[in-house]
């Protein structure tokens, strides 16, 4: 059987171009509710590779790459564009701003950090008074958010209440190690962009670059309603807590491990993955020789939590690149894990057939 022109063998790869794109994505600031900096990059990257692309009422980018041939499985792939961060809520004069946290950030991660504010990445500082002026009693307590300010050093014309801010972490690559802010979920976004470039012809690929995942899976909800897919894969980034215990005991709550490959979800706090899709991913990994790990069940949540409950229900599963220190100033991930995640999902898409949903869940 002859392959059509488009079916030249496209192997997923993470090379210089993909790394450059990831760096651009990570250093963009897109806090939930204002994803425009990332949206711009996404639109520019995917337009040449898809048949349709539009931005919906909430700011999701929805892109369709049609299947070749007759009616095929409608497969939704979602990756959220937003990151956790801050929003300035009150001008305290003289360049000091009160701020609130958007999404889940441990307040202990805030003191003494540099931030970027707004579209222009105006620098700000979350400062803390010196230890010399701090009592023992204060030292033993977490600094409450109400006591912290973002200090712009007096810049008050380009900054105002309502602006968003993120940690100011430059992207760094050291061998196989990546360090950046917002690996959750720029890794997912970069992976989805790549998958669109390499889209196989056997499925109707419905890509959703979603907004507001970190504040309640909101973009995914309306995206899934609109796209009405047969099934969904969600690409995200999940914590790896693979550090040593204080007493050398076995770490039984590692969630995932760096170097363990793509993490397949069985259950998190919002979704029980469709077992048919989990089995399918595991079979794909094993037959293609791609390493994988099972994310520890429980806790957390991805866009799948909103997607699978839409309309009459959408069989869904999530696959994530593991990363340490998610939702802090700097996360760490491995290139190999990213590469294998891309390979796994790409391989899975190619072997998807409609009968996967014919057995009962």
């Amino acid at each position, binding site marked *: 059987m002859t392959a059509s022109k488009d079916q030249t063998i496209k192997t997923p790869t993470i090379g210089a171009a993909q790394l450059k794109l990831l760096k651009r994505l990570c250093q963009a600031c897109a806090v*939930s*509710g*204002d994803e*425009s900096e990332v*949206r*711009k990059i996404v*639109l520019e990257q995917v337009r040449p590779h898809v048949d349709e692309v539009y*931005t*919906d*009422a*909430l*700011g*999701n980018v929805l892109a369709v790459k049609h299947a070749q041939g007759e009616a095929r499985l409608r497969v939704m792939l979602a990756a959220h564009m937003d990151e956790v961060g*801050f*929003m*300035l*809520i*009150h001008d*305290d004069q003289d360049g000091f701003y*009160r701020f*609130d*946290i*958007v*999404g889940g950030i441990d307040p202990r991660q805030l003191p003494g950090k540099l931030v970027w504010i707004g579209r222009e990445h105006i620098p700000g500082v979350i400062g803390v008074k010196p230890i010399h002026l701090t009592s023992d009693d204060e030292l033993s307590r977490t600094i409450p958010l*109400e006591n912290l300010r973002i200090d712009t050093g007096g810049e008050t014309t380009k900054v105002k*209440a*309502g602006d968003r801010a993120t940690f100011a972490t430059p992207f760094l690559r050291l061998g196989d190690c990546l360090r950046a802010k917002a690996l959750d979920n720029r890794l997912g976004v970069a992976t989805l962009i790549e998958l669109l470039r390499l889209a196989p012809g056997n499925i109707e690929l419905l890509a959703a670059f979603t*907004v*507001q995942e970190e*504040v*309640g899976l*909101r973009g995914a*909800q*309306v995206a899934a*309603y*609109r796209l009405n897919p047969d099934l969904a894969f969600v690409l995200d980034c999940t914590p790896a807590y693979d550090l040593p215990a204080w007493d050398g005991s076995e770490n039984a709550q590692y969630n995932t491990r760096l170097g363990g490959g793509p993490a397949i979800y069985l259950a998190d706090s919002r979704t029980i993955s469709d077992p048919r899709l989990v089995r399918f991913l595991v079979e794909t990994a094993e037959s293609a020789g791609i390493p994988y790990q099972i994310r520890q069940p429980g806790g957390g949540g991805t866009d799948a939590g909103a997607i699978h409950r839409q309309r009459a229900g959408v069989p869904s599963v999530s696959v994530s690149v593991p990363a340490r220190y998610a939702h802090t100033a700097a996360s760490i991930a491995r290139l190999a894990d990213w590469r294998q995640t891309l390979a796994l999902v790409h391989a899975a898409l190619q072997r998807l057939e409609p009968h996967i949903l014919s057995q009962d869940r």
Partner: protein
Amino acid sequence: MVEILPLLKKLISISGLSGHETPIRELIEATWQPLVDELSVSRLGSLHALKRGCGEQPRRSLLVAAHMDAIGLMVTGIVDGFLRITQLGGLDPRVLPGQPVTIHGREDLPGLIVQPPAHLLPPSNQNGPVRLENLLVDTGLPPGEVSQRVRAGDLISFAQPPVEMPNELLVGNYLDNRASVVALTHALDELQSRQVAWDVWAVATTQEEVTLGGAMTSAFQLRPDLAIVIDVTWGSSPDSPSYRTFPIGKGPTLGYGPNIHPGLHQAFKELAERLEIPYKIEVMPRHSGTDAIGIQVTAEGIPTMVLGIPLRYMHTPVEMVSLKDIRRAGRLVAEFAASLSGQTMELLTWKD
């Protein structure tokens, strides 16, 4: 011409607890009847009022929502003629002891929320604020009579009569959210003399205080192109943080955050400036705490805006609001509706 103060006083004197909004709905229905073209009730009891636009079909539609339900209490049991209670909506139990209430039993009955003496309370609650489960309502009637007239499941409203204060301020219960219903009414009133191209749905929603169910389901049914939610927001008082509250009488607030479409926010800001209506920006970092939460993510998503009317002492029987802010909010909505055209949706695209 609808007089705001008498309407507001009437509205806050009618019961309409979450899930049981029929009495208030009937009053709003009668008030809106002369101002709209069609009235109907949703499956969850929300009031839908359509003011048809004059533009060509297919016409776009704007939904303006104000929740009509209110918080209160519900009888959970009767012990020796005293009523045990639970809350319906978010209440601070510390404002309850000594409050006059109306029990909606077989007929309406006056009652008093009382704090039992310490020796009759569990040891864990003898000092400090008495938990809601340990408070009682006393009607003063003998037990036999009480069981004839009241039973578990009956509703209890606050019974604070409205009090006019200087500077066009009003004090009373249920200003959350009857103040917004009045603002919406004022908007409909203003629109009587305007040409509006789009259809406008004025919706008094149910169950906002408990499930947001009325707004969600109404938005699904009506599928508007745009939505505005009018709700009360926190008014400043000396005991509340100034950076999270807004002065009453200095204008409505314009919401800003992920729950609000930035294009709509900008449109309202420009409109307020043009009309010289004072306003404040209300930054809402995560969500708005209003019907907008459900409306924005209905079906394929609806660009949504939140207008806030500052209210002091929210969720107590002595809420305080400025009639000027109510009028301003209503006027903003009316002017916005009148400005809607064939170009509005394009102006709301995400400009990246």
